[in-house]
């Protein structure tokens, strides 16, 4: 009888110890993962920022006013008048 109780107690004790170790290891894992998450998150943010900056740069270069000035001024381009336009149809 008492041997059985002792057995149960041992098992319970073992479980408690195992769970305690489990908690510690889970916390440790969560810390490691959180650090990883933070690193990846900031990498993602940096890439997004870079993308935003590039978009901005592209938009600045492609600004209509600038395009028009270069096209008309430096390249001497003009809009075709109707006489120079050919309508293609089936």
């Amino acid at each position, binding site marked *: 009888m008492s041997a059985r109780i002792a057995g149960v107690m041992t098992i319970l004790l073992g479980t408690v110890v195992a769970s305690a170790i489990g908690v510690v290891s889970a916390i440790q894992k969560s810390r490691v993962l*959180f650090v990883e998450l933070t690193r990846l998150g900031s990498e993602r*943010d940096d890439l997004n920022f870079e993308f935003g900056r590039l978009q901005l740069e592209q938009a600045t270069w492609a600004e209509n006013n600038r395009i028009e000035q270069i096209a008309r001024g430096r390249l001497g381009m003009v809009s075709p008048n109707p006489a120079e336009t050919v309508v293609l*149809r089936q």
Partner: protein
Amino acid sequence: MKRVKPANTRARLYAVAMVLALTSSALVVRAVDLQVVRKDFYQEQGDQRFLRDIPIAVSRGTIFDRNGEPLAVSTPVDSIWANPVDVLSNAERLPELAKALDLDEDDLKQKLVQRSDKEFVYLKRHLNPDDARAILKLEIPGIATEREFRRYYPNGEVMAHVLGFTNIDDRGQEGLELAFDDWLAGKPGAKRVIRDLHGQVVENVELLREAQPGRDLTLSLDRRIQYLAYRELKSALAEHHATSGSMVILDVPTGEVLAMVNAPSFNPNSRNGNDPANRRNRAVTDVVEPGSTIKAFTIAAALESGKWKAHTPIDTSPGTLTLADGRTIRDVHNKGLLDVTGVITHSSNVGAAKIGLTLTRDHMYDVDHRFGFGEVSGSGFPGESPGLLPIAKSWGPVEQATIAYGYGLNVTPLQLAQGYTAIANNGRLRSPTYVKGAQNPDTAVIDPEIAATLRRMLETVVSAEGSGLKASITNYRVAGKTGTSRAASAGGYDNRHISLFVGMVPASKPRLVGVVVIHDPQGAYYGGLVSAPVFSKVMDGALRLLDVPPDNVKNWFTAAPENPHTIDAKPPSSEDVELSNFAEGVP
């Protein structure tokens, strides 16, 4: 020293044991007190010394135009902040710091001393991240950076009014930035970190709240059309020495705003040096008396009443009409006997007033109201004006006659565009929307037959005998209406004018509606002379950009009609190609 044998060794042993027991139980009690009873307090005190909950900044969503071009982009910047006490305790480094920040040393010191009871003060906000890193490298105690975002508008003044702007904390203050602030802003997260003596983050401990970055927004605006409208409006203002102007272009099938510009404009990338008056989006916040442009709706009511048909004659001679209160309405020229279409073609005030007086005031009010006048358009733009349409009960015969030709009521340029879009859209009204692909149901406001009749009448305006010839566009049929009204000022009308033009193209199957309003032109001031040419130039470009086919491709007009101007391309052998395949987006 004489060695004495202790009298009672046992008693002394007890005494020592007792002291030891007391001491150790005192230690245990103290330990329990610290570890159990007052644990929370000490834990908190400890945490306070190195744990910090810090916000995770999130970037605001990007705003795109309908073709995916960025219109407003947030980029990260760093703000330098200081703990005044720490900085002041290393006062010998102040000159170095002031130099790095490009601030005056005395000002900096004063600022720090004033805030020395605080733990946080911004020294300089929105620095380029590289510059901020250079300052951090100096390793001045008490100096740290915070990530923030700054908004850039690559299209500057062209888009300024409709987009609005954000404040230094990246919250929307005006325009669509304000209207969609919740959508764009996102929610800052929070994380718990360990900070060292200098305020630098040593370790991330846990995530308290995940950051939700702002969502992107795709507008219905088209950057290219917007630019075109702004350029033409601006040059028209310069040419006519006008004070201000607005232009709105709506897409007829969807009610989407393709362009909305105002001049003069402002630079949204700079927070200072802008005249606040120039920041108003006049196209939705400012009202004008619509003048002759309202006649389309008067005629709509007349046609709906059944008393008038498109060719019912009406005598407008002698070109004047005296109202009950003794005021006289005048036409520019006496056109004599016209029909209802002629009243629109020649923009006869007398004709419109006479027709208006045959209708009931409730019916006229109802028609104007159905077309959206006197109500905010539902576009959701902050600060939008509902205009003013006086309630029918307040109308006497004088009011009825004046409203019939466009005075005594106020509309915004956007409302005018909305009303004409309903005519263009077979009598179905839609709230204008700034969001591409938004759910936007329409409601029938007038019979499709009447809308078609109105379009035919409006087409006669843009002809050799009409008032809007200058709105014509090569190869496209234009339907529209000119308008000229006097600017109202306190206590009456002064000698300033407002020139208007509203039109739709292509008239046979309208795709675009445009409104041009120009305030206070000098010299010529008729809408047909000042605003109509702007309409023509902008719409010509917009039709090309959107690949809208002409009303009749076969009749493509060229400057040299004797040349073969239309060539038949070889029909594709395998598949049939329809003209609609060349709709927007396909080169």
